[in-house]
């Protein structure tokens, strides 16, 4: 809808500016806080203009929370989750849209239902499976009496075990196995004309070739969107990394590390000193990669949208 009235223009801009302020002011406060000294930040009222201690606060936060290692971990996890998500989502949506097989609708609904089960809801069973990936199978074997039979026959106990705790795999896999991206891809694939697949068939391309050389390049914009969403989603994860990592020094993520910077009385690290300036500096560092991904991908969306043709 395009309206050309000055009043409406003014109103829409006013709404935009208010929205921007709501989003921006907290970020600004974080930034300002990160530039103050310990003394300045504890002197009310809080200043609205930046101070001069940014670099030392950043350095302190970096060192205290060991952010070099943590950011690397977060980056590995987020990139892997986003990439895994794209791979899983695109190939499942491909199967759902372009193939007719028995149980297709059942598969579709099963995937759909998982949308209603975010990680937080199924965190206990997920943890149990992560602790031993084979535990469901073990249970089946135990219940059916196969384990007992095995013990009688071989004299050894049948105990399958594959532990994902404290590993990148454990961090990543449960976040990949969700339905969100599948629907995004399904919607996109439904808009691809069937004739395109038939043309590829006539050209002799098999299904995987069609997927790789035609569908994937066509879905680049989709891919960028999904990558951004999943990267941020994975980057901001807190509960799951907290559960799955026991060796926090080597496997902890950046968002987890932030907690160590928050001053709490009796805390082993902070020792009760209210150095919120360092905590905010840590926030700035941790939020930066996510912002960077959004900024880079946003340019890419726009390019993708302009270059694409029907």
């Amino acid at each position, binding site marked *: 809808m395009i309206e050309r009235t000055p009043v409406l223009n003014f109103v829409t801009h006013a709404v935009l500016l208010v929205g921007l302020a709501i989003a921006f002011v907290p970020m600004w406060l974080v930034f300002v806080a990160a530039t103050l000294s310990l003394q300045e930040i504890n002197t009310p009222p809080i200043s609205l203009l930046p101070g001069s201690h940014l670099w030392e606060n950043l350095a302190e936060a970096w060192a205290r929370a060991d952010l070099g290692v943590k950011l690397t971990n977060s980056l590995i996890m987020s990139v892997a989750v986003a990439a895994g998500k794209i791979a899983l989502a695109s190939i499942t949506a491909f199967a759902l849209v372009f193939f007719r097989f028995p149980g297709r609708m059942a598969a579709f609904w099963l995937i759909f239902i998982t949308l209603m089960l975010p990680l937080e809801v199924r965190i206990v069973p997920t943890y149990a499976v992560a602790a031993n990936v084979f535990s469901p199978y073990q249970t089946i074997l135990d219940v059916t009496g196969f384990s007992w039979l095995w013990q009688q026959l071989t004299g050894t106990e049948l105990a399958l075990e594959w532990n994902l705790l404290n590993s990148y795999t454990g961090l990543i896999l449960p976040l990949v196995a969700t339905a969100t991206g599948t629907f995004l891809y399904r919607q996109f694939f439904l808009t691809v*004309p069937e*004739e*395109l697949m*038939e*043309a*590829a*068939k*006539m*050209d*002799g*391309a098999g299904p995987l*070739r069609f997927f790789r050389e*035609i569908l994937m*390049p*066509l879905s680049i914009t989709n891919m960028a969107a999904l990558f951004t969403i999943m990267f941020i989603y994975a980057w901001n994860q807190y509960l799951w990394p907290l559960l799955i990592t026991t060796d926090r020094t080597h496997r902890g993520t950046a968002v987890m590390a932030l907690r160590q910077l928050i001053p709490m009385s009796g805390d082993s690290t902070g020792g009760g000193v209210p150095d919120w300036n360092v905590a905010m500096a840590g926030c700035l560092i941790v939020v930066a990669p996510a912002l960077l991904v959004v900024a880079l991908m946003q340019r890419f969306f726009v390019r993708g949208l302009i270059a*694409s*043709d*029907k």
Partner: protein
Amino acid sequence: MADIDIRSVRKAYGKNQVVHGVDLSIRSGEFVVILGPSGCGKSTLLRMIAGLEAITEGEIAIAGDVVNAMEPRERGCAMVFQNYALYPHMTVADNIGYGLKVAGLSKPERRARVETVAKSLGLSDYLDRKPGQLSGGQRQRVAMGRAMIREPKVFLFDEPLSNLDAKLRVQMRIEIRKLHNRLGTTSVFVTHDQVEAMTLADRVVVMNGGHIEQVGTPEEIYRNPASRFVAGFIGSPPMNLFEGRVTGPGEVEAQGIVLSVPHAGLARGQAVTVGIRPEEVLLGAAGSNTASIDVDFREELGSVRLLHGQVAGADFVIQVPATTAGPKVGHFSFEVPARAVHLFDAETGMRIDPVAGGIRAAA
């Protein structure tokens, strides 16, 4: 080049049968057009030849090999789609050469063949463009190039011209026919446009409701329509059709007009459909077989003129040369030459031949 044999082919979607037992032999190098109204199963038949639809029953053989169980790529057919179906993210060169790439040809070899094909289609200057930057006619040519490059045994076209504007359509029609004259590849072309069918085809296959109504050269189909359906479908403006009755040897009556006809062996009282082509009526002549028309509308088409009116209450159209003098509307008498009367059995809709007087079976 290859001949195509279609034997008792049926197609059903679930319980809904859309192609009812089609038999058709297409000779090697022939240009066959399948013509019929929308939804009559033309595309379905074509897609069964291509391998894009499973054949429910019957057999299709290309160059003597039954292809029922073959993948599209093994059948040696190339297809041009209605909406072009070009790969939007690939350049024109990559679009044309994609089939060769899949077939595993080297890049220089592909390039050479793409350039040859592009040159023959006048696309040389557009090889690096994306389909989105081309006009409709150019996209159509790219689609043709993609089909040509693999030097297929059979070309299949599914209404490839229906998205073009009228002028371009005529031009592309001529190009397609010239291309066929040059390459001589067996071609099957599906359309609902009778002009396209008449101008392109060596033989026209008229389909209706999943059946073949008639197979013949454009002239045969026009001169001797095998059924009432074909008579009404072919020709523009369409044939005037009336319900009538045989009133004596070589004489039928319809709309109160008594016509003597060259048909022998008609049974008195037999119900027939009488067909008269608008362009075969002689205006103003006053011999036998005369009737009169109340013209209420005159349509100028440049070289010819159409007179719309009523004959004894039934709609009737007469086509006359534009040079014919006369007032715009009014009462005119006209003559129907006996040889211009087509008769169809009212029950079966089948043609009754003038000489033999028998019923000629379709196809």
